[in-house]
């Protein structure tokens, strides 16, 4: 058996590895965090489209603030919530480039709501990658606009209550209503099947941006094992049970 194994581990038999555009810097994300998988998908799609030299990523403020340390492309680190405005100018001034933002739920759906809605409404030819884990991970687990009702965070320690905090914001549903968006979709990366589907959709989003079809929004319903105080696998199960009913996976709009 030993010899058979040696035969397998050869370059010509390679079917999966860390994406070429993802460098060797250790990522600062907590064990099991969805961010890493989404980073890999973006790296793979850019590489497979042959757009490495034409891609500009806009990093957010939040857990993914250091996204620029992990994918070997040009990056701009935006002020909190302003990534869609930054991306708007980058794309309009460089129409032949491929431009995307990478934003969390606080960045995109709280402080940056105006920039998100207006970039989408103008139909900017960009991709918005949206990580929704219903919590503020980087600052230590505070309530997000997408935090579920009764879900506990450090700023709603007795659970989110409508009277105090209002309702979880289904911002992708809202963005799907705008005439400027061509693709609004909810994906997840908790299983291999989900990852493969998400990658196909992400590629479509990037292709849309180069075909000048308008704004594509790819929401990833994600886990936050540390913020949710669960193991990664428990977090994925909690996500399936609690997040998916509120934020169902699938395309909200695809034209």
């Amino acid at each position: 058996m030993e010899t058979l194994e040696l035969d397998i581990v050869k370059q010509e038999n390679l079917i999966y590895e860390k994406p070429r555009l993802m460098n060797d810097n250790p990522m600062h994300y907590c064990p099991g965090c969805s961010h890493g998988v989404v980073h890999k998908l973006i790296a793979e799609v850019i590489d497979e489209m042959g757009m490495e030299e034409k891609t500009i990523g806009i990093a957010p403020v939040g857990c993914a603030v250091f996204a620029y340390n992990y994918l070997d492309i040009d990056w701009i680190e935006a002020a909190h919530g302003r990534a869609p405005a930054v991306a708007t100018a980058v794309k309009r001034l460089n129409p032949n480039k491929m431009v995307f933002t990478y934003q969390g739920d606080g960045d995109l759906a709280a402080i940056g709501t105006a920039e998100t809605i207006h970039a989408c409404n103008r139909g900017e030819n960009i991709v918005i990658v949206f990580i929704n884990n219903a919590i503020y991970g980087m600052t230590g687990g505070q309530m997000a606009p997408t935090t579920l009702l009764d879900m506990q965070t450090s700023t709603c320690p007795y659970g989110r209550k409508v009277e105090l905090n209002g309702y979880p914001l289904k911002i992708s549903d809202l963005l799907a209503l705008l005439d400027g968006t061509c693709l609004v979709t909810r994906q997840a990366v908790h299983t291999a099947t989900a990852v493969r589907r998400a990658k196909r959709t992400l590629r479509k989003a990037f292709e849309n941006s180069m075909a000048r079809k308008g704004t594509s929004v790819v929401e990833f319903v994600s886990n936050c094992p540390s913020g949710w105080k669960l193991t990664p696998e428990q977090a994925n199960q909690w996500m399936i049970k609690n997040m998916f009913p509120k934020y169902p996976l699938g395309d909200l709009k695809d034209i």
Partner: protein
Amino acid sequence: MAKVKGSVTVNTERCKGCDLCVVACPSEVLELTNEVNSKGYNFARVKNPDECTGCANCGYVCPDGCITVYQIKI
């Protein structure tokens, strides 16, 4: 029907021991060790190499890109 045989290697230094690859594997090829890497994580390693079909599920779900998968038809 053509059979396939796979093999996975784990970058144990990069691994954070999240266990998601272990859960994702349909053939119980992987396990978390009791040993720790230099960052203090119980890393993943191959337990049952013979069972691997090279489906790459472990690789897809690994958040840190620690897993490389090879596959041959036999």
